């Protein structure tokens, strides 16, 4: 499969491959990824947090750059803690943050957030971003993805696997209903506590966003 192939849709079955029992994978170019690693590859020994769960590809890529990797499966934790219940429950939110982002003695130089923020309702999302802001160093970067199809009832959610600095393999883990759909304006507002937000508008209804602390 050639790098830069579009995200797979049912109309493009010829480029699909099966990873697990039911996963569909595709490879795509990612300007956001390229920018993120341009920022963090200048020096070794940085701390990078990956919220997509551990994968061999991401471990290899990040540790080969000489960085220390922290791994957390955010979507899985979201399901484990809330189990489909109200995401605005304060004690559950605290439990979730304690479970996922409890890094008292660690500050990160970059966070691969991927597409997980769009599955959070406003209260949980606000609390999560506030916690993320406290655990990353100033001038560090977050890489996030948001589906941009405002009419979508469900969107594919992915395991993001780094192939190289410019290419990602997206392994579809299933379909999820986004809690919120964001446009550029709402994303600016969402990250207003951060220093800057940079968008990469793709042809695949997947918006790449680089956020600077």
């Amino acid at each position, binding site marked *: 499969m050639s790098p830069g192939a579009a*995200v797979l849709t049912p109309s493009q079955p010829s480029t699909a491959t099966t990873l697990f029992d039911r996963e569909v994978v595709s490879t795509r170019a990612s300007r956001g990824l*390229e920018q993120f690693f341009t920022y963090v590859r200048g020096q070794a020994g940085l701390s990078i947090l990956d919220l997509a769960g*551990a994968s061999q590809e991401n471990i290899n890529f990040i*540790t080969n750059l000489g960085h220390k990797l922290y791994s957390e499966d955010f979507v899985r934790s979201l399901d484990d803690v809330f189990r489909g219940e109200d995401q605005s429950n304060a004690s559950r939110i605290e439990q979730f943050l304690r479970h996922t982002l409890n890094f008292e003695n660690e500050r990160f130089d970059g966070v691969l957030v991927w597409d997980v923020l769009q599955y959070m309702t406003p209260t949980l999302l606000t609390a999560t971003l506030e916690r993320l802001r406290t655990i990353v160093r100033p001038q560090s970067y977050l890489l996030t993805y948001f589906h941009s199809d405002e009419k979508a009832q469900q969107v594919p959610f992915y395991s993001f696997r780094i192939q190289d600095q410019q290419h990602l393999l997206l392994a579809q883990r299933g379909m999820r209903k986004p809690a919120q759909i964001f446009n550029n304006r709402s994303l600016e507002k969402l990250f207003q506590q951060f220093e800057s937000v940079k968008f990469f508008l793709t042809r695949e209804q997947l918006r790449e966003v680089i956020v600077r602390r």
Partner: protein
Amino acid sequence: MPFKTPEPESTRGQASIGKAVKINGQIYSKEDLYVDGDVEGTIELQEHRLTIGPNGKVHSSVKAREVVILGNVQGNVDASDKLEIRKDARLVGDIKTARIIIEDGAYFKGSIDIVKPEPAKASGSTPPRPQQSAPAPASNAQGAAVAAEVKH
């Protein structure tokens, strides 16, 4: 010709803690160890291989030359040579190892610190640097068409 069932690889030529066994305390072994039961404490195998079986539940720090996890580990893992986290295994803890293999379907939460073994001393040689591909020039590749930046 009669077929002889091979002995499971996981228990061949090594000490074994069965799935009905529970141990609280320190385990120190000078041979390979297979743990399919519950262990709370520490496990240390100098220069040997530790395998946590599919029924194994380990709440302890683990130190060995090679660690293979098929079950559940909660604790830090120090594998001087190699760590394998197999499909359906679960590890919550920090990892220090030279090499790591994680299968799809495994769950891992924690940090990974890759510690390369000391290279053999050779006069005039320098330790190898991590492989890094040269940064490619920005391209307007398919999938990334427009960039916009907002500064707050």
